[in-house]
């Protein structure tokens, strides 16, 4: 009787340990998968490299850059906020930067500022 109880106790402990072990593996796998998926989304979806590159760029460059292979075709949200020649489309998403429809306005050269000598 005592051996039977001992055996049952061992079996129970072994099964609980298996549950714990498998749960830990699944938890670790889920955490790793979450990190991996986050990284994968950062590379698969447009925007990640854009935001990084745009940090040191001018406003015009920021609005014009950002094409990526995973861009959604036929983007309709773009046009809602776009005005003038700054529209973009899904076609442009696929094929890189769009050529500007207008020539940049020529502005006079900035005045030369001298420090005053001495």
């Amino acid at each position: 009787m005592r051996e039977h109880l001992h055996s049952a106790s061992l079996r129970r402990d072994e099964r609980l340990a298996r549950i714990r072990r498998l749960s830990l593996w699944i938890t670790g796998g889920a955490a790793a998968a979450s990190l991996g998926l986050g990284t994968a989304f950062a590379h698969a979806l447009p925007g990640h490299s854009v935001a990084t590159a745009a940090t040191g760029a001018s406003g015009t460059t920021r609005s014009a850059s950002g094409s990526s292979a995973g861009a959604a075709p036929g983007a309709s949200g773009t046009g809602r906020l776009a005005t003038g020649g700054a529209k973009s489309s899904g076609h442009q998403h696929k094929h890189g930067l769009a050529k500007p429809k207008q020539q940049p306005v020529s502005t006079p050269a900035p005045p030369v500022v001298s420090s005053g000598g001495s």
Partner: protein
Amino acid sequence: MLAASSGPSPLWYATRATGVVALVLLTLTVAFGVAGTARYSSASLPRVVRSGLHRNISLLAVAFVAVHVVTTVLDPYAAIGLTSAVIPFSSPYRPFWLSLGTIAFDLLLAVVVTSLLRSRLSYRIWHGVHWLGYACWPVALWHGLGTGTDSKLSWLLLLDALCVLVVAAAVAVRLTLARPGARAVGLAATGMFMLATVVFVIIGPLQPGWSRRAGTPAAPASAAALRAKPDGSAIGVSRGTVRPPVRGQEARHGLS
């Protein structure tokens, strides 16, 4: 600084990643749960181990769903408030598809709370709520397909298909133990669901303009905030001219 303020933030990536992982964990939970109702047991997976995994994985899924909700609320772009996270149809951002996620979250909460209070509830109430919990999985799947801005990614579609197949296989195995009439109805319902999901993906998220049809506001909150900045230093505003935002910013929120 820019990436944190207007570009795709880490919060968005965390939202997407935890959402996908939560769906996979929910799939495993449902599969183990269905296997439990089928009294499945083997030498490698005894009943107590299967039951323990079902419980632990479901709690893990709840944790991932919680992170998914918190990161969604903290991500300022779509301005999804905490209220919208628990009350369906209260968000202006893709109301229907977001509400599916809200409903799935509420169902999951109900299952967890009743399971924690199981000793104080009658078996009938607990069992009824637990069965409702199975509805959480298809609702969550459709939420991901409809709201997810990454539904076009082939590997993600493959993962969704794998989840559907796992649950369908578990249900099919379970139905082999059912009465012939119930078996036919169950198999027909499973087949219909799979067919409806495939048709929905083809005519919905894979089509251009899905964002507009899904109910994405024309000017999400963050875009409006960017336009409202007086100094015009933010993306989208330059010397009084509204410029299109960074394309990645649109794509990350599914303006497709």
